[in-house]
Structures are given as C-alpha cells and as structure tokens.
C-alpha cells in the first residue's frame, strides 16, 4: 500500500432492519415461487433474461451519517482526512447493507447500482447515503458471486451487463475511491503577481491534480484487492456537498471486471441506420 492510502475500512456484515427481512421473505410465495420487484426498464429486464439471468428483487441500503469537523489551514493544500473517511465509511455502510439484502435474497449479484447522497434540513453535518440496485441470479444455478462469497455488485445498466458478458467479461464489484481536499487560498502577493497576466496557477493545478489522483489510486487499490483485471465505466464526480467553496470531494466509482471462458466469439459490429432522430 502506498503512502497516503487510507486503510480500507473493514465493513462487517450488516444486520438488516425488520421490515427489510419481512419484505425479502415475502418475495417468495407459499409454494416457494419467486416474485421480483425491480427498477430495471423493460429493455434491461429483457436483456437480463437473455443473458441467462433472472431478477431476484430490488435491494437497497441506507446510512445516515454525521460528518465530523476538521479545521483547514487557509493557505495550505491538504487532504481533509476526517471528511474523506466519513464520506467513504458512510458509502461503504450503505453498500454493505445493500449487499446483505442481495445475499438474503439468494442472488448472485446486483446490477444497476446507484449511490445517492441526500441532505435533509435536519442538520448541516448530516448526510444520507442510499445505494439501490436490482439483484439477479443465474437461471442455470451457476455461481457468479464475487471471490469474497458475497454477490457481485456493479453500476452497469442491463444493456451494458449484457454486452459485457457477450464480450467475455464478468463484473466483480462496484469499486470506489474518494478524496476530500482543501485547496489553498491564493496569497495576496500571488494575486498581485498574476493579475492582468496569462499564467498557470500551479497551486490550484497541483491541488486538484493531487486530489483526483488520490481518489483514482484508491479505486484502483480496491479493484486489485478484488483480484480484478480492470475497471470499466469509471466516473469521477466532484462536489462540495455544501462545505466551504475551497473544500471539494473527488469521488471515483466504477465496476471491476475479470475475464470468463467464452462459448462463442464476441459479436462483430454491424452497420445499422436508425430512422429515429
């Protein structure tokens, strides 16, 4: 582990609230027949079935988190480790609960996972993290779980999932990395020097560069822990979450994948002209 990489919080298996357990039990009727709920569109639903999977049910996890306070030095570029840890831990908790629901449903994995950050007017330092996705299982009973034994997770849509399997890869887990960074304010002298001139602001460049690299490095580290060969669909989000304008969170998220044995060659692209605008 390189310097500056925070220890990945060890998320324990989460206990589910009573209503969640009841809902999951009710997703099978007396004959043991499954009845699913899903937030998949019709197209996604059909493609999931084509790739040999069936919907098990909508799964979610939530965590309400109180974010601690950290003083930042006005003129210093620095990571706000307290905030970084809070934002990371809260997302992990929401994800772990969602995985637990998927596990209880007896599914192989979760697709279309979305992570929301909600704020309520109840308190300034309170942030709610919600993870929602649709749990799926293989129709032929084969095991698609991640190496950890828990269901795989991914933020891929049904279309992307279908395409990924067709081209010989499988998702392993939703990986993420974040970094909350305080960007130093410019000194008055620096302001005088740069006013009316075209020039790079090395201070700002370095701060934003650093923060993005740290978030990406953590994401990569998570994927390596999972034994993945790579990460697809990585996105980097920037948000101040209502903090001071110079405090920014960089949040990287993507799906780690590994190759699978293929029965047939991946399909070759075909030229199609649509009549839609």
């Amino acid at each position, binding site marked *: 582990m390189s310097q500056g990489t925070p220890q990945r919080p060890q998320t324990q298996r989460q206990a589910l609230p009573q209503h969640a357990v009841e809902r999951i039990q009710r997703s099978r009727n007396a004959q043991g027949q*499954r009845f699913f*709920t899903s937030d998949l569109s019709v197209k996604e*639903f059909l493609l999931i*079935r084509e790739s040999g999977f069936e919907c098990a049910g909508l799964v979610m996890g939530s965590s309400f*988190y109180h*974010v601690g306070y950290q003083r930042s030095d006005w003129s210093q570029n620095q990571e706000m480790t307290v905030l970084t840890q809070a934002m990371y831990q809260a997302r992990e908790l929401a994800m772990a609960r969602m995985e637990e629901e998927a596990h209880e449903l007896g599914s192989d994995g979760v697709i279309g996972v979305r992570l929301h950050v909600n704020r309520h007017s*109840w308190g300034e330092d309170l942030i709610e993290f919600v993870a929602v996705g649709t749990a799926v299982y293989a129709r032929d009973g084969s095991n698609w779980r991640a190496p950890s034994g828990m269901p795989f997770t991914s933020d891929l849509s049904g279309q992307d999932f279908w*395409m990924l399997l067709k081209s010989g890869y499988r998702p392993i887990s939703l990986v993420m990395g974040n970094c909350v960074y305080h960007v130093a304010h410019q000194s008055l002298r620096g302001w005088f020097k740069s006013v009316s001139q075209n020039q790079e602001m090395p201070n700002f460049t370095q701060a934003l560069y650093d923060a993005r690299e740290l978030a990406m490095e953590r994401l990569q580290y998570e994927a390596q822990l999972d034994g993945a060969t790579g990460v697809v669909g990585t996105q980097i989000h920037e948000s101040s979450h209502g903090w001071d304008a110079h405090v920014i969170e960089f949040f990287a998220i993507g799906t780690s994948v590994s190759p699978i044995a293929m029965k047939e060659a991946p399909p070759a692209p075909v030229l199609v002209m649509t009549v839609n605008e």
Partner: protein
Amino acid sequence: MSAAAAVHPFTSDLTIDELLLLEDVGFEPLELVLGASYFHIGYQSASYAQNQEILDLSEMMLLARQTAMAQIQGQAEALGADGVVGMRLEIEREGHHAEFSAIGTAVRRRAGDGAKFRDQRGRAFTCDLSGADFWGLVRGGFRPVALVHGVCVYHVAHQTLGGWFNSAGKNCEMPTFTQAMYDARELALARVQRDAASAGADSGIVGVEVREGHYGWHSHVIEFLAVGTAVSAIVDEAHELHAPARTVLSARDD
C-alpha cells in the same frame, strides 16, 4: 366493436413510433383517458422523539391516487378498451389542497381477443410503459397487469440534546435516522409488492421507482412512494416472440 368506433377518430399522446409499435403487437389506440381527485392534505401530529409511520396520511395519499386510477379504469371500461398505456400520475399542490391526476392512452386489441390481456376479473390493464417498452414487453413474452403503488408517510424522530452532544464534531453514523429512512422505504416497497400480488401479477414488477415527497408537512415528515408496472408471463403457444437481441454499437456519440 361497432361501426361507430371505426369512424370515431382516436386521440392519444403517443408519438408516431409508439403508435406503429402498438399496431405491430395488434393494439389500436382509442382515446386519451383522464382521472383526477382533489384531496385536503391534513396533518397528524407525531411524537417528537419517535420514529413512526403516520398511518392516516399514508392511507390518504394512497386513496387519492387510487381514486384517480379508478376513474381512468372506469373510462377505459366504458370505451371497451383492453388496457391503458403510458399512464402518468401527477400531483399539484396548492397550500393544503392537492390535485392528483392521472392520464394515459386507452388501447384495444384489434383482433378482439383482448380478454387474455385483461386481469382475472376482466378489468383493463394499466401501465406506465411507453409504446416502445410495451412492444418490447409483449414480444418478450410478458403482459402488463397493473400500475402498482406502495405508499408510506413517515415521521422521523428528532435528535435528543444528549445525542447532539455525543455526535458534535465526530464522524459517526446516526442510527435513528438510518433506521427511519430504511424502514419507510422498505414499507413502501413491501406494499408495492403486495399490491402487485393482489392485482394478480405472477412474475414481478418492472421499473420500480422510489420517490420521496414533502407536501407542506413538517420537515421530519416524508412520503415514500414506490410505483412500477406489475407483469405476468403470457401463456400462449402461438404468441409471437421477438428475435434474440443482437449487439448494435452506435457509431454516434450520445
């Protein structure tokens, strides 16, 4: 139906694509159907320090939507329609009064064999699917049964002063809040599941969305609404399915 229906022009809010896709699976549009209900959104006090569902409000919000839906179904019935596609539910609030409205396009099987698309009690199906989604679903071997709902209006407990002191300046989870939001969402989801089962759907629900709403209540009172289309498998040997999906990579950036 009759010759009168044949000369009566249809009205719909469908796009050309949707219209053609509906025709392709043997349906024709009849008329735009509307339903509306007006309700006074009251207030029920909840204990300040308690996580609890506000049952009166949950029931009222459900009843208001069901009333609008029932009107749509009544109109579809009168038209001799087999179902309603592209249904949307909207709420417009003015102070403590709210209008719940529903709108959709009533459709009918051209061949007159629409009975197999109706529910066990012979009522028209309802769904929020677009024409394209409806086509995909029917060709994929499923039929929509009903637009189903689950509602839960929940009061989230306030934090105690002691709790506030304990958490001030620290990173920690707020278990009371977590529990409340979790509970409320799960209740809404469990109800949408139950609604689908009582509508007679045997496969599942697609396109479920859990929405949060405030309707002029106190900030600790939140409505969780889960909506989706319940579907059943089509049991018919002669039913025409679409060809297996093929990869199409769009060369266009979008």
